């Protein structure tokens, strides 16, 4: 296995690397948190990185005709193929280096996908990539909870009740998306015992996110990070609240931040404070009522939503993470 780069953990927000690998030239929405995810991701990874991106906002909006925001090499891959592309790129590099056609040096390979390309159609490919533990690579899923690029269709990651092009609330049926959001990261962690690192994060917590990227790139083998990205277009809110909604998602206990490194689960930031009882979860209503996609929910819906979140914290074996009920004492 090729060695990994020396990417030490960053202590303090002021020590986050100053160099940019993702600048202007993209035309994402005002307040696009996914663009911020890309920017912080490449900041943490550094210049000796190859990025492969599957179809989605971060492909279409970033690299329209004759423009790119990327400083590092970037290539598009098909919707759903981030796993295959990541393995292929890492294997290709290893082979070129073995044959002496390239200088033997550790190069980070990151493949990103949206929730449509990752949680829905790319899941099988990601699963395969996580089994190939001879290659160092990171698959990053930026989750804006819909197919946002094509104007907000429901994905397996869309939350219950959310308005979307596929689930517009009507007079007779108010709730059209009746599916609960997939629990992707734990599924991948539990299903791939040889995968050494799986984490969840949010770019609103920039330092935590930076360190998770670095841990994923240095631990060795294939790794996976799932990031929640508030989307001003699909979630329908004033773009200036992108950062705040990311924080609210965590503070309400709806999005749980953790890392699973070599089988050991550690919650981070507010999620950890909630778990240890230092901090109370904020009512989920504070998060939902700030978004136009939930504007049609009534009291009963809000209560139901809250009860599902409560259940994940109070009744799950690993609170907020694994949906198995606690064994009887």
């Amino acid at each position, binding site marked *: 296995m090729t060695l990994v780069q020396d990417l030490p953990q960053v202590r303090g*927000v*002021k020590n*986050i690397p*100053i*160099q*940019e690998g*993702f*600048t*202007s*030239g*993209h*035309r*994402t*929405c*005002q*307040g*696009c*948190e*996914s*663009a*911020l995810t890309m*920017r912080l991701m490449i900041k943490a990874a550094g*210049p000796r990185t190859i990025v492969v991106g599957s179809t989605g906002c971060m492909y*279409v*909006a970033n*690299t*329209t*005709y*004759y*423009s*790119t*925001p*990327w*400083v*590092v090499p*970037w290539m598009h891959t098909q919707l759903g193929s981030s796993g295959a592309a990541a393995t292929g790129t890492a294997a290709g590099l290893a082979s070129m280096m073995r044959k002496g056609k390239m200088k033997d040096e550790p190069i980070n390979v990151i493949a990103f996908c949206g929730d449509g390309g990752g949680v829905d159609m790319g899941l099988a490919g990601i699963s395969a990539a996580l089994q190939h533990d001879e290659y160092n690579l990171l698959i990053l899923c930026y989750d804006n909870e819909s197919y946002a*690029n*094509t*104007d*907000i269709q429901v994905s397996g990651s869309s939350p219950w009740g959310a*308005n979307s092009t596929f689930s517009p609330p009507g007079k007779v049926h108010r709730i059209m998306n009746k599916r609960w959001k997939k629990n992707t990261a734990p599924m991948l962690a539990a299903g791939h015992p040889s995968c050494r690192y799986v984490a969840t994060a949010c770019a*609103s917590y*920039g330092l935590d996110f930076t360190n998770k990227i670095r841990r994923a790139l240095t631990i060795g083998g294939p790794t996976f990070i799932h990031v929640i990205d508030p989307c*001003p*277009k*699909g979630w*329908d*809110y*004033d*773009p*200036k*609240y*992108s*950062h705040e909604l990311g924080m609210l998602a965590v503070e309400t206990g709806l999005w749980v931040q953790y890392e699973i490194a070599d089988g050991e689960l550690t919650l981070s930031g507010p999620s950890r404070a909630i778990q240890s009882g230092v901090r109370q979860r904020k009512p989920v209503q504070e998060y939902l*009522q*700030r*978004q*136009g*996609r939930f*504007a049609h929910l009534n009291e009963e819906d809000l209560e139901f939503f809250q009860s599902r979140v409560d259940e994940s914290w109070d009744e799950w074996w690993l609170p907020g993470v694994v949906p198995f009920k606690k064994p009887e004492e």
Partner: protein
Amino acid sequence: MSTVAVEVVYRGIFQKTLARNIVRSIVFAARKEGKYGTAFGRYGDSPERNGIPAKQFAIVADDAEELEENLAVYEAQEVDVTINVDDTMCKGIESWAWYGLQPINALTKAGGTLIVTSRQDVDSLIEDIHQKDQPYNISTVTSIPSFSGLWVYKDDHTDVRILGALAKVCPQLVSLESMVEAIQDQGWDDLKVRSAERTYDRTTMRPVEPGEGNQEEPFSFDLPGWTTMEEGIVIRGIEQGGGFRGGEEGYQPVRSSVFKKYSTRSMRPIVNFDTCIKCTLCWLQCPDTCFDVTPDGLYDANLESCCGCGVCEAVCPVADCVTMINEAEFNDNNSQYEMWQKDKDDYTQWMTSLIDKQKQVDRTHGFHHVGGYAEQIAEVAED
């Protein structure tokens, strides 16, 4: 035989429903008069992005054959009326499938009309609008730009007020009576009809002479064709950044040479360098890599990169240190840090006056909380 074309230039997503209401109503009204019409969004603007300028069109013709003839072209080459529903786009637009800056009146016919929703006076709008070789007219609908989102529409009557103004400035399109019928047919209440009629009565036109307006050449560059692109259609990456303004200290990323965000934003941040505590949050949380790091560790908003989302204002822990100001207040994209260094007192005075002015008019960018739009509309109604 006559065809009338109308374009609505709007901020993507924020004003998508508004634009759709306008172009659809035009066609409904035209059908009342036995004319043929169709309404459509420009293909190249889809999928839309929040705040990125986009266009929808309404084409009305006397008979079906004539309409088809006009629809055979991909996009109207000239229009009788251009409707601009956000006055900050008077500076020109960079839509996301079109590179370079396009003047807002680029498609407006000689003798045609540009309708703008604005609270500015006409002369200050003309200062921003690029000059044209032919005469045209300008007409304003007094209002704060109406912004909402994809799912919840802020019904502040901007749509019907524009329809009223349109009937006045372009009587050959449809009469006010047909417009009113079209409004009623869509199930909108009498209040909306009254808004349309009142705007019709109040609307006036101001002729704009050839050569009058902004004299600047709009930003443009050569678009390579497929034969002139690099092998494999490779696009060169952006260069590594370096010190602030090419110096040793600070940091400044290199930015795209083909896409400037000058017209993507409707607000821009203004920084108080004296009260900044260098916490890094505005820089760190900016999705657009907008802030240059100065040698003394301050953060200067680089306006080539800023799309005006306002996250920097939201995360800044110091009161009034980063403030979003209406883009219409500015006539250049100069560095604020350089202004501040040149004359700190002057800068502070200028900045304070802008912040005070901003506090008078609240420009909102969409959904804040359930019931928020109703409160905003009530405020406007009181004015």
